[in-house]
């Protein structure tokens, strides 16, 4: 049987596979009440954090800047499907990390707190007071 290969083969280099299933390993799975659980201080915040981040002031400012930078010229005449399928795609690919990297970053932070991290999370600049300053990672 080789069906489990895919996840097993991710063990080595990139731990994106592991990142992606951390919520399952930490929040799902069998809990038996007669057993104790090791302290997960910090890491339990992961799933909560995300919602907080999404609704934070920083995020609002970042969205405002991002909208400001968007070139929407012609968007009135271009139908939605065109917009999504065509023009956007090229620029969007590189940015596709946006939403996800926040969580990955939060996770790396917890890993790093343990002094166990070889990988630096994407650096993120949050100050968006100056309009010509990039307000997002990259």
């Amino acid at each position, binding site marked *: 049987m080789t069906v*489990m290969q895919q996840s097993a083969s991710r063990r080595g280099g990139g731990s994106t596979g592991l990142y992606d299933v951390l919520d399952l390993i930490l929040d799902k799975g069998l809990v038996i009440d007669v057993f*104790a659980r*090791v302290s997960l201080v910090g890491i339990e915040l992961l799933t909560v954090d995300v919602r907080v981040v999404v609704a934070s002031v920083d995020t609002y400012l970042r*969205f405002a800047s991002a*909208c400001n930078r968007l070139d929407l010229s012609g*968007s009135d005449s271009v139908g939605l499907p065109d917009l999504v399928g065509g023009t956007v795609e090229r620029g969007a690919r590189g940015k596709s990390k946006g939403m*996800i990297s926040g969580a990955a970053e939060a996770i790396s932070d917890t890993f790093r707190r343990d002094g166990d991290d070889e990988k630096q999370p994407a650096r993120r600049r949050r100050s968006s007071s100056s309009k010509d300053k990039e307000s997002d990672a990259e």
Partner: protein
Amino acid sequence: MSTYVYGIVRADGAPDPATLTGVGEPPAEVRLVRGGDLAAAVSTAPEGLRPKRRDLGAHQEVLVELARHGAVLPMRFGAVAEDDSEVAAELERSAGHYAGLLDRLADRVEVNVKAAHVEEAALRTVLAEDEELRAANEELRAAGGGSTAERMAFGERVSDALAERRERDAETVVRPLSEHAESVVLGPPVGGCLANVSLLVHRDRLDEVHRAVAALQQEKGGLMEIRLNGPLPPYSFVTPPGQAVG
């Protein structure tokens, strides 16, 4: 010496635990504790075990390996029993429940799918959909960005529009994928994703699920990024003793 527990299997189908690498540094040896017809994969709990990447990975890998040999009930990371005898006692105490779960999960795997908006594309979409939002954006732009308060207020409206859009799009991901699953569990929106869905899938239908996800990604184009993880041990489909097998 306390005992770290990875998961529960049928004693007769369990692999040689010597091939498994446990949590801790250096990695603890994995062994089987038997109780009736069941066995738990365990190791001696390392001192001060914390959820480090290495340990989370080890937990996952032990379960993946066990799952290659048959049904497994994965424990949530971090379960520690007082000692081996407490584990054995639990296996016997709740034998009926665990056996029922193992039957139900035989030849089944979990597939987790996370879909997230590509941020820039989603921003374009919500602006394109909402004339007022578009006008507000133009106003701010004309004002050289606007004051911080104005930008915050606008950003909040955008954020709300994105949240609303995520909610709307979630269904378009979950519904078509559910058709390929025997059971579906929705997870929290980790990483700001719009859908975090776990499917319980018969192994024979794995290819079908892969194709369905690929087709969905194709359909969603640049608006979403959809990631499939699996086959996985059925983390989302195990219930504790006292609750229905599901």
